[in-house]
């Protein structure tokens, strides 16, 4: 019995190693948070003088040196919304096919390979594709619709991948139980698989908002412009065939093209961009928590 209560050299070493391992991993986890907090804090401090409601709701004036970001802010909202309206349904339905229906043959394998590779294509290449396919070939011209479609193609593979993962997390035994009682594949998907994977699917889709809102390259050639004046306070100010401003592009032009802009301006634009994304992400987390609380197994 005594051996249980005495510490030998070996057990001491074990204890120290354990502590060291825990401390190392913990530090790394903490290190993740440091840049995020620093960035957000730095941006806020720098942007503080300009932050106001008017900044968000008024158009830029005086060669973008004064005024607000309304047309860029609204443009980003349009681009994100339209592109997700295209990519989410296509992506989710494609993923359901790939995960639930597709047999394991060369065609399926090729589609899966294509999805993976599409996810790895740099955004500037998507931009050139969008320019060629939508703006020139399809003839829609530089417009919100062309830019949104380009963004949609960029987000599609990621949505497919995340949706497939959520679907795969529903145990196969549930599906088998349904098939055994004579349910069709669709009945099984409709009643069991989708209701139990919807939180993951939604999260995957909503996370693409931040990506879509932040990209500059794909929209630069396909629909975003340097400057555009729209009626302030009118949320329907853009039509789909219009060109638009966008926050990401605006941030880029203000920092590189506009001389004598107030020091706080780019920071304020960045805060607006980050804030939009964070609000959407918060909604996504809220949805997820709500749906998780109803998780059934």
């Amino acid at each position, binding site marked *: 019995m005594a051996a249980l209560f005495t510490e030998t050299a070996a057990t001491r070493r074990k204890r120290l190693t354990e502590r060291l391992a825990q401390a190392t991993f913990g530090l790394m986890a903490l290190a993740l948070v440091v840049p995020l907090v620093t960035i957000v804090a730095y941006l806020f401090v720098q942007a503080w003088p300009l932050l106001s409601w008017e900044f968000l709701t008024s158009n830029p004036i005086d060669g973008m040196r004064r005024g607000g970001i309304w047309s860029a802010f609204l443009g980003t909202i349009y681009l994100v919304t339209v592109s997700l309206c295209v990519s989410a349904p296509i992506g989710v339905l494609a993923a359901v096919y790939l995960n639930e229906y597709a047999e394991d043959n060369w065609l399926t394998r090729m589609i899966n390979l294509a999805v993976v590779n599409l996810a790895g294509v740099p955004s500037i290449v998507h931009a050139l594709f969008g320019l060629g396919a939508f703006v020139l070939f399809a003839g829609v011209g530089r417009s919100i619709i062309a830019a949104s479609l380009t963004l949609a193609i960029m987000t599609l593979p990621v949505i497919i991948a995340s949706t497939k993962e959520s679907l795969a997390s529903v145990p196969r035994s*549930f*599906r*088998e139980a349904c098939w*055994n*009682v*004579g*349910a069709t594949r669709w*009945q099984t998907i409709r*009643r069991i698989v989708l209701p139990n994977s919807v939180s993951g699917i939604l999260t995957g889709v909503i996370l693409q908002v931040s990506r879509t809102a932040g990209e500059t390259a794909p929209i630069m050639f396909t629909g975003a412009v340097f400057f555009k004046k729209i009626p302030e306070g009118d949320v329907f100010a853009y039509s789909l065939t219009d060109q638009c401003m966008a926050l990401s592009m605006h941030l880029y032009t203000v920092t590189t093209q506009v001389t004598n802009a107030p020091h706080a301006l780019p920071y304020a634009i960045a805060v607006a961009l980050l804030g939009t994304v964070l609000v959407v992400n918060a909604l996504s987390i809220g949805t997820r928590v709500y749906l998780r609380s109803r998780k059934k*197994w």
Partner: protein
Amino acid sequence: MSEPKQKKIEVSNLRLSYGQKEVIHGISFDIRQSEIFAIIGPAQSAKSSLLKCINRTIDFVPGAKVRGGIKVDGQDVSKMKNVYELRRKIGMVAPLPVGLPLSIYDNVAFAPRAAGMRTKAALDTLVERCLTQAALWDEVKDRLDSLGTKLSGGQQQRLTIARALSHSPEVLCLDEFSIAIDPVTTMRIEEVLKQLREKITIILVTNLVQQARRLADRTMFLWNGEIVELGTNDVMFSDKPASRQTYEYVNGIFG
């Protein structure tokens, strides 16, 4: 000696392979109307795969190839257009209890609804009948709205049986149903099976030799995808079954 019963399921020269590997090597046997037919044998004897061939859920297994014939009520299952009807004719209970992530009521009502039954009154009657048959009604009648997945293992297994009965099957297949539940629950379910045998045919796949001995009319000893012996229980569990292997397996000398 009862009169010869009608053949319910006829299996002739059935071969099943997964990819290159053949797991069932051309077996033939009949299962008669309203008997309890036990299939015993060690793991990897393709017992579960055999059941999947019968209700054609083997279609969902990638790479599986079935040759030879299985007839249910004289009809070749491989030629059936309406496999959903076939699967409703055959109740299937998996080794591990699977409560679907639905309420207890919806778990049992799932199959009838999938088949198009919508009337509340008819569903209510059916749910009560199936849960009663599965010896679960008294325990859950006051909480039919709570989740099936929150029941205990033994209760979930009875729920699974209730679900298998919900589409009024003519054949009930139980695949190692007692593997995850306690002996008391097992005995309760065995009692249920004894009552059900009056009306339906039961296929009982089991690792428990004694369970086959207790319940079955006939027992088939399957080993490595081949039938070692098939016979009535008084032969299979006697001192002199036809095969030495059967004797040794049944008496725990081998396997």
